[in-house]
Structure formats: structure tokens, C-alpha cells
């Protein structure tokens, strides 16, 4: 094709694409709900959305990550209908409405081969602040502890700092990963690692540690004995519109809560 043809064709193609794009923006009677925010909440919302869309064929639920703060910002700017947050709102965000969809435990996890199965909060705090740096001090082999934390700004890290660190700083030598999944992957591959992740993600690849003899489970959270718990929130700007309400209602329904429960989260019907 000659150069001239290209020059003529390109704008045409671009125009065509944008036309089809424009027409796709109002697809028949389909309703699009856009949700963005915490990567901790995202996988569960995606799961919920998948199920929701099976029963509600005329709905499209678009789930994005981005982090709690970005989600809240997006709600304030009205670019999304729902924000997801794994941390409580800050003061300047308080004018937004929140809906607690469930509670999530934070599990401290180690490699399945690690014999250490029980730590108290103080020990965990000392590990992450660098004051305990060898497994020998915890009654295992003489090997450095590979602590894994989340990155600055993450909701999970925020909750962990509030609930565990209590004003102590996480040591600079601690490894940092940017999602629950990647923390889990590191702990699952490194026998000497310790990290904290959303309880819903715990599976056979990692071993949750009991905290002061209390293992993390839905039961112990419900009974209030397991203390590392945070709410998962949906955030809206003002009242919900009807289409989003349909989705939120589904999430809060028995069916939706059962899905969350299957994922290891603590809902309202347990």
C-alpha cells in the first residue's frame, strides 16, 4: 500500500473505531456499574460480580483495582459508582457513605514447613520492627527471618500497623510486596519467610500462625477472640442509584454473603 493510502486510511479507521466505540457506550438496555478501589477487596468483588451477572444478564459490572485511596478518590470525582476500601475513611473523606460488606481477618502466615505455629502480638511486632531477626530466637533454626510486608499506602498494611505495630515502625530491611497474592507467593516459596495477608487468601500453600493460641478462623473472629480484623467497605458518594443498589443488595443478600463466606471472609449470616 502506498504512503498516500495510509494517510487517507488512518483517520478513516480511527473514525470507524471511535464510532463503534460511541455506539457501544449505550448498549441497548444494559446497565454498567463501575467499581474501583482496594486490591484486597477486588478479588471478592470480582467473584460477586461474576455471579451477579449470571442472574442479571442486562448488567455489566466493571471491577478495577487501584487501591483503597484511589477508589475513594474515584468516588469523590464520580468516575465510579462504587469504591472499595479495606481501611476506614479518613476525616476528610467522612462525608461519603460507607457500606460494610463483610469483615476480613489478617492472617500472619509462614511456610508450611515452618514448625513455628504460635506467636503473640508482641513477638510479631518485634519481628516486623527488626528487633527479632533470627528464627533461633523463636525456637527454630539459626537462620535470618525473611519478613515480608506490604507497601506504604496499602489498606492491609495500614490495618496491620494499627492492629499490630501500634506506633512501632516496620523495619526498613523488611521485604515489600505490592499485593496479598505476591506476599503469599513469597511466603509459599521461601521457607524462612513470614508475612501477613488477608485471611480469605490463606490456602494450603501457606500456614497461618495462631496469635496467642488463637488461630484465625471465621469462628474466632465472630467470637471476638481473634483481634486482627478489619472491615471491607463499599463507598458511595451520596445515595446509591438504582442499578448500583441492585448489586449492593445482592452482595448483602444471603446468596452474596455465602459467596464471601466460601472465600474465607466473615459475613453477616454466620
Amino acid at each position, binding site marked *: 500500500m502506498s504512503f498516500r493510502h495510509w494517510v487517507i486510511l488512518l483517520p478513516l479507521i480511527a473514525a470507524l473505531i471511535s464510532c463503534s466505540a460511541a455506539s457501544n457506550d449505550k448498549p441497548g438496555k444494559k446497565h454498567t456499574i463501575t467499581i474501583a478501589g482496594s*486490591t484486597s477487596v477486588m478479588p471478592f468483588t470480582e467473584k460477586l460480580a461474576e455471579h451477579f451477572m449470571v442472574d442479571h444478564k442486562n448488567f455489566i459490572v466493571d471491577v478495577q*483495582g*487501584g*487501591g*483503597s*485511596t*484511589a477508589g475513594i*478518590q474515584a468516588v469523590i470525582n464520580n468516575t465510579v459508582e462504587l469504591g472499595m476500601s479495606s481501611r476506614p475513611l479518613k476525616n476528610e473523606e467522612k462525608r461519603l457513605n460507607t457500606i460494610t460488606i463483610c469483615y476480613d481477618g489478617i492472617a500472619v502466615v509462614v511456610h508450611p514447613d515452618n514448625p513455628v505455629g504460635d506467636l503473640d502480638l508482641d513477638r510479631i511486632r518485634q519481628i516486623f520492627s527488626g528487633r527479632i531477626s533470627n528464627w533461633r530466637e523463636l525456637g527454630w533454626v539459626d537462620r*535470618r527471618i*525473611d519478613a515480608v510486608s506490604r*507497601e*506504604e*499506602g*496499602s*489498606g492491609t498494611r495500614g490495618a496491620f500497623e494499627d492492629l499490630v505495630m501500634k506506633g512501632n*515502625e516496620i523495619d*526498613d*530491611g*523488611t*521485604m*515489600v*510486596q*505490592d499485593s496479598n497474592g505476591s506476599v503469599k*507467593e*513469597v511466603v509459599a*516459596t*521461601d521457607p*524462612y*519467610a513470614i508475612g501477613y495477608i488477608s485471611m480469605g487468601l490463606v490456602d494450603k500453600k501457606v500456614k497461618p500462625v495462631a496469635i496467642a493460641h488463637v488461630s484465625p478462623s471465621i469462628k474466632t473472629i465472630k467470637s471476638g477472640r481473634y483481634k486482627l480484623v478489619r472491615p471491607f467497605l463499599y463507598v458511595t458518594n451520596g445515595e446509591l442509584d438504582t442499578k448500583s443498589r441492585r448489586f449492593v443488595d445482592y452482595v448483602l443478600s444471603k446468596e452474596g454473603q455465602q459467596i464471601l463466606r466460601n472465600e474465607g471472609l466473615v459475613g453477616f449470616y454466620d
Partner: protein
Amino acid sequence: MIDRTVLKEHLVKWVLVAFALSSLLFLFLIFIFILAEGLPLFLKVGLNKIIFGMKWAPTKGHFGIFPMIISSFLVTIGALIIGAPLGLSCAIYLSEYAGKRTRMLLKPAIELLAGIPSVVFGFLGVIYIVPLVRNYLGGSGFSLISTCLVLGVMILPTIISISFDALVSVPRTYREGSAAMGATKWQTIYKVIIPSAKSGILASFILGMGRAIGETMAVIMIAGNALKIPTGILDPLRTLTGNIALELAYATGDHRLGLFSTGVVLMVIIMILNYIANFGIKRKIAK
């Protein structure tokens, strides 16, 4: 008739000028927007406290990225130590020793290495290199040495192809002249060809450094991303790029500005490297 041709020629020329200017415009936009986001924090916190600050806790008002600057340079130099000799040897082999057929096979194979996405390198690094380091050298495996190994391989294609170009562009007459005086092949390479291609080879090293310092995804998968300056090759570390990629998603307010400040520092480093590679060294070749 003639006027129309002349007019058309002018029109074409100005359209092309506009196209050519677009690159400058894009560069300008990138500069402006990264600077606009990154500079305010420098003014607010102070250049020293950012560049030489040891503590990075942006939600608590600490924006020091000195450990990351050091870490970025460490991985880059490490990658160069691994990639440069290997890459240069390959380039010499390809340009001087390999037969036509071998070259036809090896050259594209090496260029394919450049095409493999960096996430694939990162992934394979996590699956194979990290456990290897953990089991045989110690530490968590997420470390300076693992990162350097993976980056060293990743910069190979850059080093090989640019050095190769520099080597083959040494005029044939030099080779003939040297051979005609009874020099062996290696003497010719060592005494004539490499000195003649010196600046191109250096440029390849510097561009390889640029690639290593700019690599992101593979690095955050392997480096461990700890905030301290590593004290040994087995310690985890966080690079400038890693800092941005790890935290951008969650950052707001000053935290986000802090990441853009990291971007500004990275951009300045890259610009200096590029400047050396393109304008300091290539000009010498032209001479």
C-alpha cells in the same frame, strides 16, 4: 501545473515538519507533566531531604530516596558486570568469527531475547534464580545478586547488537590492512578493531545501563523491595523504578507527589546516561 507541484512540495514539507516536531512535543509533555507533579515536593520538603534522605515513609512525611538511588546503581553496575563481558564476547564472535550461516542463526536468536517481555524474565527469575540463590548462597533469594543476574541477561541483546554494529562498521580496509601485515585475527581484533569501535562499544554499555536502570516489572518481582541500602549481595533492595511501580496504585496527595519526585530523579539519571551515549560517544564515531 508547475505551481501546483511546487505548492504540493511545500505542503508535504510542512506536514512532515509537523510530524517531526511531534516527538519533541511528546518529550516536552512528558517532561512537563512529570516535573509538574514531582517538583512541588522538592520545594516543599527540600532537595537534600529527598535525594539524600535515608527514610522513605511518605504517609509519615519522610521522602528520602537515597537508598533507592544507591540500589538502582548497584543493580545496574552488577548487571553490567555480568552482561558486558558476555555481550561484548558475543558481539566479537558474531562479527569476526562466526560464519555467514552461524551468524544468520545466532543474530536473530539474540534479537529474540530482546523481544521476550520483561515480565517473563521476572517470572522465570522468581521461579528458578531466586530459589537457586536461596538454597546455595543463603538469604531469602530476593536479592541484589538475583536481580543482577536477571538484568545482566536482559541487557545482553542491547549490548550485543550495538557493539556488533560498531564492530562491523569498522571499515573492511582496516581488517585487510592488518591481515596483510601478517597479524593474526585476534591481534587484528584486539589492536585495530576494538580500538576503532571503542566508542560504539562504550555506547552499548551505557545504553545497557539505561535499560537496566529503567527496568521495572522484572525487578519488583525479584528484588524483594526492602527499603534499606543492601549491605551484601544477598540482601533485598528497592530500585527507583520499583518504588514507583509498587506504590503508585495506592498513593494520594504527598505520597503520589513523592513517587513523581522519584520519577524526576530517575528521569535525570536516564537523561544523563542517554546524553553520554548518544551525543558524547556517537559524535566521536562520526569523526
